[in-house]
């Protein structure tokens, strides 16, 4: 079943074109990796899919669950099952993780026509999901990401993903800034939450993460376009030859 269909997507920020015609189809059950040198537009693609208002889509279309994704507000994209694990999770001093998650879970339930969770049921759900990602119990008593270490922030993203059970999981550089143990915990969480009806986009600079989250397809993004698509062996080739190999081939 086709979950996401991106056609000829162009997007700009502050008048500068970053995405220059992206095409990508993703079916339920699949894992796609997007690799590419720094600055090639990987985070831009994830931000545009999630609906960050800082970016302007100038051309193209995106269908998600058969709906026009670009016509939805960021919150409705989340309610429809899209989840972005941020490369740089945002700190929100003064807003507790509990209040933040309660609002997120209940707004999604409202969208689905369900009653809000009772306080007891909500806390039970939090406890249950915390186990999946082995997150420090104290983190959920603190303000959202405030004072979290790099690893804690990334774990917290996966924890939020566990709470919201999305159908399309976009992981933007989840591996950056993680030591090998934290990387394994995050990857395990992602794998355990994998379902036949959901799909994953893993954005990464390095091959390392793909040992843990094994992709069905690898796409190389360079200068706002997907310039190469292959199986998981493409990551090894890239590891061996380096990004210069891509840069030379697709200079312009």
């Amino acid at each position, binding site marked *: 079943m086709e979950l996401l269909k991106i056609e000829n997507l162009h997007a700009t920020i502050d008048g500068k074109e970053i995405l220059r015609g992206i095409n990508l189809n993703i079916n339920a059950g699949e894992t796609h990796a997007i690799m590419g040198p720094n600055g090639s537009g990987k985070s831009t693609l994830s931000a545009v899919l*999630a*609906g*960050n*208002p*800082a970016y302007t889509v100038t051309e193209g279309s995106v269908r998600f669950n058969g709906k026009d994704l670009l016509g939805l*507000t*960021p*919150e409705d*994209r*989340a*309610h429809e099952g899209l*989840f*972005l694990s*941020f490369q740089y*999770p*945002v700190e*929100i*001093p*003064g*807003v507790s993780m509990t*209040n*933040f998650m309660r*609002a*997120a879970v209940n*707004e*999604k339930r409202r*969208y689905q026509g369900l009653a809000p969770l009772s306080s007891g049921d909500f806390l039970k759900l939090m406890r249950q999901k915390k186990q999946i990602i082995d997150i420090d119990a104290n983190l959920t008593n603190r*303000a*959202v990401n405030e004072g979290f270490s790099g690893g804690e922030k990334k774990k917290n993203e996966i924890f*939020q993903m566990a709470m*919201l059970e999305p159908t399309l999981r976009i992981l933007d550089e989840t591996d950056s800034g993680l030591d090998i143990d934290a990387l394994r915990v995050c990857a395990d969480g992602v794998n355990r939450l994998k379902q036949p009806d959901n799909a994953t986009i893993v954005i990464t600079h390095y091959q390392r993460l793909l040992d843990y989250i094994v992709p069905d397809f690898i796409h190389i993004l360079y200068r706002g376009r997907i310039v190469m698509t292959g199986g998981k062996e493409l990551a090894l080739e890239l590891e061996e030859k380096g990004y210069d190999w891509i840069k030379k081939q697709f200079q312009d």
Partner: protein
Amino acid sequence: MSEVNDNVLALVRAHNKSRDTRAAAIECYERLGMPGTDCEAYRFTDMARMLPVRSIHKTAADTPKAGADGHIRIVDGRLATPPEANAHFSIAETGIDNAPDAFESVAPGVSDGMVALNTSLAEACIHLHIKSATALDAPLVVDIDFTTAPGQLVSPRLLLTSGVDSDARIVLRQTSRTAASVNMVTEVHLAEHARLEVVTVQDFAPDAAVVNGLYCAQEADTTLSLTLASLGCRLTRNSVEASFDGERSHLDLNGICLTQGSQHTDNHTRIRHLKPGCTSGELFKGILGGQSTAAFTGMVLVADNAQKTEALQTNRNLLLSPQAKADTRPQLEIYADDVRCSHGATVGQLDAEQLFYMQARGIGLDQARRLLTEAFAADVIERIGDETTRATVREAIGTRLETLTQQ
């Protein structure tokens, strides 16, 4: 200026027959008049234009009825039947000319037109005294209600005194359902070793115009915590002054104001470090929507003998709309050399990245704005020492923010 207010002086004269305190106050008002923006302390608020005075409220002969909630109640400047005599505090109403000694000892009637006007017109001095060497567990709630018609100036006068080594919390809940014109003065005096918290909640009808003077004096070894939670009405002017008249005392002065539509709030604060070894911490925050305006003035005076003074001041403003405007003005006058003083002021908007992060988790824009705005207000509320009062204030602000944060 305003045609409406040109005849206030005539009204004041007609209202008063004789009496010394009054006569002196009227003389002062005659000299000072209703302050306009040419008056430095009222630079951001033209009283003559903003405070409608068409007539002077004359209180009823009957004593207003007390509520069943055990609160002390003041209606249109008059004390309702007070609670029974109490081991911890006393409350009484007197006329202006036989008011207790502490009356007029703190408020600057000779230099501030609004104080002089209040003294000229107040029909009673309501005196709440916390007895020496007592500690009150529960906060004393004083409901200060206004029922007066628009343009009818009402001038309540309150005196709060804390006895030696007393410990108390007082909540002043100012409310109106009418577009009242209010010019209230409260004097606060702390005797040695007293600890007092005063939380003022201003919850007026949207068209009310309120001038609220809070004048405090602290003897040695005292701790005073003042919080002003102004939920917003057409005009809110808070004039807060606190003087250290003894050594080793501490003042916390906190405020949070919400404004929307075309409302205006002017918090004018002045802390006078006159004695050595005193500390003051000041935190004021403004949350502004619509085309509303808010001004903050933070005057801090450190006299030449007031060594080892510590005075920290912060003012932060959150503009929820591009048309809202905040003015902030720190004014530090420091004549001593061994002091630690700091001030900081910011005017900003909600953070776009934080908003997007919340939206990306499915939290709608209105709710995201509300959560972030509540977070902005939180540290002022957290500074309220009394837990019940803190919860009440948090809820009142939360309710008001629901409408304020909607786009």
